[in-house]
Every structure is written in structure tokens, then in C-alpha cells.
């Protein structure tokens, strides 16, 4: 591809191959795309005749290895990214209402935020759950809650993402069970379960068991999904929280792809064929403030994953090489000072995600440095995406920044810097060892501290915080409050639920799960049985706490 002739040939291959094939199946949104002033917009721009030599094989074409310019041949000319707002608070009833509101506002996918007790596997009536029920997400204790959460939402019509990690198997089983009750078989279910436990140790903090038993459950989920839920993403390998914890862009992609390789290796080690599960792996990144660095970051990550999967893991199916990702704008960039400014920050971050070729997007709400978002704030956040999609024109051509000297140079530099971490982690004995030693955690804490010192010293400007301040600013935007009574209601509900079910059956299924968990059989069928009988999240996690024990954090400071 280094010569003019070579490039033309590859262009032709791309045009007559992946593009023609895609168009036959998925026509583009419009017959012809044009700018606001009527200038036609091509699907893809490549270098002028003169610069042909510069256009190397490391760029390639969209939908072709190494996917630097995008994973699909037509990208947003076919279909916009999925607009998916992460939401959940209080109980299943309130969150069900919020879901319906979002779908009515034109959102195209659901994304569930669970409260911390659910994420850490305590029922709402556990003393450790006190004060946390329904706060950062919805409280789900048993199948009864999950049914209420999706009341009136047919599971064959939506795709659903669930941010759940240590108890991922349980919540997935509940989703399957809701589908069964609605008459939707599991092979029709579409969505994603985060299920990325490694980044919990690294940055997010909702781990329960240690890395090895956790990886076993993760692998069981991947295997189960590969066989039974062909449209489901069993893993969303997440850099988002690594970035939120204070990492740099380089650390975000390096640590995420390292974690990704560890999952692939765990799958292969358990006897799975890499191409049987790798095509369904998905990713989740942050869109931070530095627009062009973010665009380069997404491109670099795509290229790295393609090489790693093909060359290091020996994947043969091109779908295994594709890094598909969800993006959320950077929550940590939002300020509680002059909160309306956050609308602008989010819009630029969303722009970066789209220019970087994201498959789905969550835009944060302006009030999130203060509270969970209100309905009005969420609407503006969603409208931001709709304006970018329908008004801005940036979705009309693929990878519009490709070929920019700066973008290409930055893409190369981010890639090279990220690979350096690969060598370092390998020499430490791999990802799990590095986590146990607190290596990633310390690297991130170091970057976070450096950043904060820069802000405090005024070397970095944060508008409205350390410059352009309004003296004695008064908060003028409304703040969402979760009713205190919510916790009492949910506690009553779970206690009542335990009385109403067949407890003999529940104990039997939990016993069965204990046996399977000690052995090597896939845990998913046993979890599903327990869930159908209304065993709670806390009860199932308690079985695993007994079998696997809890993880101890290494000291990082």
C-alpha cells in the first residue's frame, strides 16, 4: 500500500469488497451526503496523489485490518452510533419510569446503573448496605425487581447494557429469566454485560473475590454466551474508570488492552477457541477534554487490538481483530462550579468520541458533579448527541481527521507509549501479578496527583474552578434527591420476597451452585436455576464468598 498503484488497488478492494457487501445488507442513511452548503461529501477521504506514499498499511481502510480508520466499512453513513444513557436510581419502579422517558426521547439503547449493594453483592437489608440503597443506581435484589425494571419494555426490541462486574453472572441470569417470562428466547437477547473484574481492582473498586476465581466466572460467562446468546457481548473491557481514577490517555489504553489480553488468555487457557468468543468482546473508553488526543487514542487502541489479536493471540476471524467500543464523556472533567459550562465540555467530548469512531455513546449530564442527573439535565445530554448526529454533519464521512499530520503523529505516539507498558507488565509476571502488587493502582494515583498539583499551581486551567471564577457563586440548578423512604421500601420488599418463595427449592439450588462452584463445570446453569427460584443477589454472592473468599487490596499509598 506504500505506492500509488498499491493504494489504488487496496482502495478498489475496499470499495468492491467490504463496502459493496455492507451496502447490499445495510444501505446508508442517505443516497447522497452533502455539507450544509451543498458540497457532496464522499464516504472516505484518502491522500492527494502527492502524499500517497505517506499512506501506509498502518492506516488501512475502514472495516479492514488494522481498523485504524474504523471497524465498519461505512461507519455512521449506515447508522449512527447507539445513544445509550447510563441510568438507574432508587428502586426498579423509578428506574423503569426513567427508561421509558429516555426511550420516548429517542434514546436507542438502555444502560443500567446498579446501586452499590447490588454491585458488591449485598441485599438491601444487609447492614453494610445502609445508606447506599438506590443511591448510585437501582437496587436489584431478586428476579421480582428485575421484572419490574423491564415492565412494559420488550427485551426483543431493545439492547441493554448492564454495568455489573463481580455479580455479573447473576444479573445476566436475571435478564435471561425476564426474557423467558416475556417469551423472548435467550438467543434473541441483545446487549452487554460489563463483567470486567480486572479494572475493578485497578480503578473502580467493586471487586469481591480475588482475581483467579473471578476470572473463572468471567470465562464461564464468555463460554455460556458464545453457546447460547450469540448477540450478547459478555464482556466490556473498560478503560473508562481507569481514566476517571486519574490515568493519562496512554495508561487508559495500555491498561485496558492489557486487561483485554488477560481475558483472552484466560478463555484460551480454559480450552476455548479464541475465535469462538473474541468477536463478542467489546470495550468501553472515556472521552476526555483534549479533543484531538482523544481521537488519536481511539484510533491507536483499534490498531493495537487488531495487531495483538491477530499476531499475539493467533485469531483468524477478522471479527476477533475488531475493537468495538462504547464511550462515556469524562465525569471527572465536570465541575460543580458554574455547572452550565459542563454542557459545553460534554459536547466537545462527545465530538471527540464520534470523530474517533465510537459504536455507542453516553453523554454526561451537566449536574453530575452535584448529584445524579435530573430528567431535564439528561434530556440536554441526549439532545447533544442528537445535534451532533443530525445537525453537525460529522457523521457523513468516515474518520474525517485521518491524514492530519497531528492526528497521525499522535496516534503513532500514543501507540508506542502504550506498548511500553506491555513490556513492563510482562516482566512483572503478567496482569494479575501487577494488580496484586498494586502496580497499575500506583501508576494511576501518581498521574492523578500530578494532575491535581498542576491545577492547584495554576499550570492547568479549569474554567470556573481555578480561573474565570464567579465570586460567591450560588448554585442555581435543581438537584435530584433520592427519597430516604426508598431504602425502607426496598428492605421490606426483599424480606417479603424471601417469605413468599419456595425456600426449600432455593436452598437446594444454592447447594447445587456451591458444588458446581467448587468444581470445574460452568456455573451459569446453576445460577440461572437459583435466580428463577428467586434466590437473591446477596444469597448467591454469599455462596461464592464462602467458596472463594474475599480479596484484600494491596497498599497503594
Amino acid at each position: 500500500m506504500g505506492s500509488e498503484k498499491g493504494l489504488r488497488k487496496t482502495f478498489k478492494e475496499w470499495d468492491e469488497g467490504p463496502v459493496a457487501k455492507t451496502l447490499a445488507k445495510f444501505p446508508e442513511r442517505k443516497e447522497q451526503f452533502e455539507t450544509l452548503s451543498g458540497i457532496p461529501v464522499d464516504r472516505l477521504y484518502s491522500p492527494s496523489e502527492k502524499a500517497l506514499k505517506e499512506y501506509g498499511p498502518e492506516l488501512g481502510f475502514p472495516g479492514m485490518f488494522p481498523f485504524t480508520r474504523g471497524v465498519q466499512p461505512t461507519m455512521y453513513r449506515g447508522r449512527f452510533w447507539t445513544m445509550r444513557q447510563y441510568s438507574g436510581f432508587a428502586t426498579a419502579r423509578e428506574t423503569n419510569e426513567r427508561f421509558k422517558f429516555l426511550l420516548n426521547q429517542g434514546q436507542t439503547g438502555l444502560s443500567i446503573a446498579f446501586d452499590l449493594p447490588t454491585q458488591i453483592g449485598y441485599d438491601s437489608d444487609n447492614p453494610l448496605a445502609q445508606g447506599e440503597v438506590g443511591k448510585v443506581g437501582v437496587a436489584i435484589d431478586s428476579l421480582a425487581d428485575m421484572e419490574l425494571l423491564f415492565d412494559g419494555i420488550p427485551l426483543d426490541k431493545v439492547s441493554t447494557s448492564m454495568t455489573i462486574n463481580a455479580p455479573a453472572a447473576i444479573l445476566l441470569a436475571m435478564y435471561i429469566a425476564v426474557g423467558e417470562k416475556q417469551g423472548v428466547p435467550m438467543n434473541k437477547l441483545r446487549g452487554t454485560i460489563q463483567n470486567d473484574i480486572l479494572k475493578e481492582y485497578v480503578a473502580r473498586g467493586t471487586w469481591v473475590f480475588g482475581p483467579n476465581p473471578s476470572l473463572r466466572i468471567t470465562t464461564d460467562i464468555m463460554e455460556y454466551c458464545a453457546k447460547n446468546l450469540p448477540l450478547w457481548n459478555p464482556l466490556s473491557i473498560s478503560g473508562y474508570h481507569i481514566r476517571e481514577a486519574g490515568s493519562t490517555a496512554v495508561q487508559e489504553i495500555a491498561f485496558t488492552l492489557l486487561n483485554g489480553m488477560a481475558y483472552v488468555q484466560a478463555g484460551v487457557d480454559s480450552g476455548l477457541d479464541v475465535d469462538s468468543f473474541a468477536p463478542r468482546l467489546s470495550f468501553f473508553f472515556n472521552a476526555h477534554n483534549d479533543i484531538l488526543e482523544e481521537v488519536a487514542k481511539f484510533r491507536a487502541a483499534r490498531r493495537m487490538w487488531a495487531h495483538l489479536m491477530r499476531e499475539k493471540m493467533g485469531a483468524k476471524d477478522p471479527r476477533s481483530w475488531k475493537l468495538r467500543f462504547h464511550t462515556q464523556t469524562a465525569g471527572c472533567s465536570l465541575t460543580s462550579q458554574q455547572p452550565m459550562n459542563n454542557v459545553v465540555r460534554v459536547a466537545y467530548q462527545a465530538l471527540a468520541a464520534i470523530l474517533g469512531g465510537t459504536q455507542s455513546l453516553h453523554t454526561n449530564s451537566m449536574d453530575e458533579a452535584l448529584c445524579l442527573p435530573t430528567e431535564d439535565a439528561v434530556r440536554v445530554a441526549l439532545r447533544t448527541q442528537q445535534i451532533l448526529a443530525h445537525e453537525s454533519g460529522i457523521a457523513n464521512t468516515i474518520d474525517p481527521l485521518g491524514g492530519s499530520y497531528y492526528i497521525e503523529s499522535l496516534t503513532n505516539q500514543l501507540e508506542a507509549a502504550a506498548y511500553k507498558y506491555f513490556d513492563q507488565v510482562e516482566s512483572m509476571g503478567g496482569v494479575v501479578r501487577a494488580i496484586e502488587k498494586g502496580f497499575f493502582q500506583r501508576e494511576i494515583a501518581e498521574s492523578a496527583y500530578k494532575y491535581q498539583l498542576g491545577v492547584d499551581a495554576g499550570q492547568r486551567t479549569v474554567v470556573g474552578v481555578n480561573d474565570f471564577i464567579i465570586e460567591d457563586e450560588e448554585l442555581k440548578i435543581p438537584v435530584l434527591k433520592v427519597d430516604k423512604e426508598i431504602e425502607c421500601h426496598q428492605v421490606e420488599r426483599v424480606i417479603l420476597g424471601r417469605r413468599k418463595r419456595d425456600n426449600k427449592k432455593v436452598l437446594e439450588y444454592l447447594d447445587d451452585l456451591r458444588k458446581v462452584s467448587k468444581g470445574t463445570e460452568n456455573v451459569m446453569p446453576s445460577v440461572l436455576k437459583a435466580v428463577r427460584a428467586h434466590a437473591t443477589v446477596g444469597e448467591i454472592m454469599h455462596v461464592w464468598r464462602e467458596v472463594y473468599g474475599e480479596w484484600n487490596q494491596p497498599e497503594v499509598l
Partner: protein
Amino acid sequence: MSSSKKIRVLVAKPGLDGHDRGAKIVARALRDAGMEVIYTGLRQTPEMIVEAAISEDVNVIGMSILSGAHNALFPKVMELLKAEGVDNILVIGGGIIPQDDVPALKAAGIAEVFGPGTPLAEIVGYIESNVKL
């Protein structure tokens, strides 16, 4: 008490919240300002925090919560301290804490609440001028 005695601080994460970026940054800043800092790690119950504060003989407890559980957990820590007869520890809080909640927290005995964007020097300065050594 001699002025050269180092201020001892317990930085704690009560509840189930995993957001510890702020807690770690504050812990380091206090250490860099010459204080002795103990960081508890995640998922501490109020009982664990009070026990650690007493056994480590700290002058200050700094708690961080971003999950919204502050109204339940901060006052609980104050209650337990009172029950133990401890009244010489300066207790401060931080995180995502709506302005409306601050008066009740202060009434419960939390000396000050620091929100997002607070300069580190402000927290250091506050502790230095309010700690009871």
C-alpha cells in the same frame, strides 16, 4: 504540646463507594505537607473507622464519600466517637455532597465539608488552623 509534633490524620472511605481518587490525592497532599497519614482503603464501616482512629491516636479524620451515603454514614461516625468519649478529633468530609446536606452534617459534628474543586492548600490550611493537638 510541642509545635513540632506531627499532625496525625486518618483518611477513610466509609461505605461501599469505590471512588478513591480524591481520598488518595488528599492523603498524599497532607503527607507532603508534613502530616502523618493513614489511609484505610475502601469499604470501611463507621465502626472500623472509629476503631482505627482511636488505635492510631489520630488528631484528624478525613472521610470521602461520592455515593450519596454521607447522610447516613458521617453522623454515624460522630455518634460512635461520642459513645467512645472522644471529643478531641477534628472530623472533616468531602466528595459529592449537595450544599443542602451540609448544615445537617455540621450539626452532627462534621467540622467542614470540602466539595469538588477544592484546592489542596485550602484543606491543609484548614486542618493546620483547626486541629486540636
